[in-house]
């Protein structure tokens, strides 16, 4: 199923404080119109107020901003799009305006405050097209009610089918009954949310159904990046060990994406039922749970296409890791080393932070390199500590030589390279995680 064309409304406005009421009123009304409840629409409005005020302070007079609100079924997204030429990019570091040593000034950080009111917050620079600042506020859904789940039994006969909304709900409830939290992504706690995700086409699902509709298992997948699809499952409900159901479900997912531009399929929440002969283990990431414990999750990956080979850029301090990983994964890569030959650098670096507040995860991405990278990174990390965000990742795209300049900064600040995702960015992505003693 193809993703639906999203409903959206947009406002073009000057970055001038006199238009703040217009901007907030636009986002609030758009959010309600696009399906958010009043409380959630208010949160998005508050975040908009912070963002718009912040942009007004940072922008040159007459700078134009486009605010676009769109519905993703289970969320409303507000994008603030503006040309970068009139902004100092340094201002988009979360830590730009204040000293992180000063608790009071932390409270004045508009971007940070905005990020607290929403589920997802992201700044991205689109080369030659300006900057996009994104806020995502999700609808509120009731949690699952496991009491209503019918018992499961082995299905000797089944067929793989696309689900209707009621089947999606039942599938979600059965996943929660039969599997432990660590292999279930957070959104599975809300069956209605999964229905909206699938209805909107952003997620796809396939179910194994018996002759009279009994549910034996299922799988869900979605585009997790430009070239990468992520799957959840296959989840099986009391099926016999010799059943082919897991394989058939996975093959339904593979068949659906086989002739798309997907370069890879990743499973970050692998169940025991994942047919491992289809995958290669990439490495593991550690997720800090609410109560402070940790969960180590091995990421499994398969390429969807024949690897034509490519060249990647690397800092010397990352070279050993890359050579080992590329040899282990038999990935044909020409590693080109980036060397500092004394050229003049920008004094200021810029980092983008994407928050996933529901999972307490933050992912950093480099936007600009600069001489202050060590300090800038340290300031960001201090801020994340204040925000109790312990699962901190950094994504480095090896197609971009300038991104590799962050390698010494990352290592100095306690990050460890954990895994390579082939072609997940413009080139391979290296995922670093904060903390070198994580298991």
């Amino acid at each position, binding site marked *: 199923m193809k993703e639906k064309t999203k409903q959206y409304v947009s406002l073009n406005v000057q970055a001038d404080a006199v238009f703040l009421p217009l901007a907030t009123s636009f986002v609030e009304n758009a959010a309600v119109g696009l399906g958010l409840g009043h409380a959630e629409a208010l949160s998005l409005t508050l975040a908009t107020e912070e963002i718009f005020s912040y942009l007004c302070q940072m922008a040159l007079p007459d700078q134009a901003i486009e605010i676009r609100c769109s519905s993703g079924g289970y969320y409303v997204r507000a994008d603030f799009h503006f040309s970068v030429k009139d902004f100092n990019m340094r201002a988009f570091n979360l830590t730009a305006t204040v000293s992180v040593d000063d608790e009071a000034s932390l409270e004045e950080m508009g971007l940070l405050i905005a990020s607290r009111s929403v589920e997802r917050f992201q700044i991205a620079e689109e080369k030659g*097209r300006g900057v996009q600042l994104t806020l995502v506020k999700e609808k509120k859904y009731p949690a699952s009610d496991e009491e209503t789940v019918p018992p499961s039994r082995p299905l000797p006969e089944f067929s793989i089918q696309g689900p209707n909304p009621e089947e999606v709900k039942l599938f979600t409830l059965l996943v929660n009954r039969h599997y432990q939290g660590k292999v279930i992504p957070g959104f599975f706690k809300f069956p209605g949310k999964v229905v909206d995700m699938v209805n909107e086409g952003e997620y796809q699902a396939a179910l194994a159904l018996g002759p009279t509709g009994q549910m034996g298992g299922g799988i869900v997948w979605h585009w997790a990046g430009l070239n990468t699809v992520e799957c959840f499952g296959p989840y099986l409900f009391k099926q016999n060990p010799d059943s082919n159901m897991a394989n058939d479900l996975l093959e339904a997912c*593979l068949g659906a994406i086989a002739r798309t531009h997907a370069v890879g399929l990743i499973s970050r929440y692998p169940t025991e039922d994942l047919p491992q002969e289809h995958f290669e283990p990439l490495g593991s990431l550690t997720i800090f749970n609410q109560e402070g414990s940790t969960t180590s999750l091995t990421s499994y990956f*398969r390429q969807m*296409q024949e690897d034509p080979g490519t060249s990647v850029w690397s800092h010397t301090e990352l070279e050993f890791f890359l050579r080992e990983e590329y040899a282990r994964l*038999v990935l*044909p890569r020409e590693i080109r080393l980036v060397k500092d030959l004394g050229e003049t650098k920008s004094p200021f670096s810029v980092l983008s932070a994407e928050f996933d507040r529901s999972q307490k995860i933050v992912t950093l991405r480099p936007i600009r390199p600069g001489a202050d990278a060590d300090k800038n990174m340290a300031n960001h990390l201090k801020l994340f500590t204040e925000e109790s965000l312990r699962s901190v990742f950094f994504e480095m795209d090896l197609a971009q030589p300038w991104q590799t300049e962050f390698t010494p900064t990352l290592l100095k600040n306690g990050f460890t390279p954990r895994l390579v995702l082939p072609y997940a960015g413009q080139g391979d992505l290296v995922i670093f995680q904060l903390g070198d003693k994580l298991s």
Partner: protein
Amino acid sequence: MKQVRLENLVPDHIKHFEAYIPSKPDDELKKLYGCSRLIRLNNNENPLGPPKASREIIDRFPPPHASIYPSGDVYHLRYKLADKFGLHPDQFLVGNGANEAISFVIKAFCQEGDNIITADKTFAVYEWVAEFSGFQAWLVPLVNFGFDDEGMLRQIDERTKILFICNPNNPTGSYWSEGRLRDFLDRIAGRQIVVVDEAYCEFVENEDYPDGIKMIHEYPNLVVFRTFSKMYALAGLRIGYLVGDREVVDIIRRTCVVYSVNTVAQAAALAALDDQEHILRTRDMVRRGKEFLSKELELMGLPFVNGQGNFIMIKLPMSDSLAYRKLMAQGMMVRTMTGFRFPNYIRITISKMDAMEAFVESLAKIVPTPTPRRKD
């Protein structure tokens, strides 16, 4: 510099479509994979090369002729084909490879809202051309590795214009017998165009295998594709053709790009048609290669699908894309089958014995050794 507002210019069906990225040239692949040799077993090419008469055409092509446009409608080759098959020259359309012919047919008969029907696990170009042209491709699952006639008939609706059948099917090698094809065409009863792609027909020796061209006079809605890329080993020159009822081909010709087939290709293809000995030698090589490979795969305990055509599909206990990388590192280039919706299968082109032996040796290094079978 002003930016192009592509978002406003590009149709939706193109926005959702991605360009096909072909593999890199051999020298680049060898460098990246660090291998000193590259044995190509990926594209079902004929390792014996073109027939002798075609080679001579290619060898003797006078360089000054490169400055002259080719025959726009491939005149001499069409007349030769007409003579060979006892049809009128206007019943033939020659394209820059059979892929171009697929595009001609779809353009000729489909308009907005129309659909085509084919199998889910077959040559991808029918589906691709339909989708990037903005038409729906309905995909009917194979049954026992073969095209499902009943399923395809059930799928037909009032907007179905063309049904594509790959006979024998790439990559499974299954085929419809003459009786089954006739029954299918009878039940279609001229309501839709039926394309039978016979790219691998020259490899099939079974008596019940139908010659689609001979059936055109009975079924005017039947269009047959053939190619010079496989048996005749002219893949690098890009030449293939379609044949059908004169009235149908006249419609298709309206969408056809003239001058798309170069002079050398036209002449080499014309020369190839008379070389029956080349076909026999190739069939012999394929037969011996398949016998050898089948035995070795059985010893290795690997399931395989060995139908008609110069290829075999092998099921591996690992991801086909991982196997591809491991084989490429040893200089063996195979075709992964995930893109054909056969994940964890690879397709091997049958080649000369030294290549087959080298392939088996490389494959043995990447798959676990099977437990020896106990003799009772």
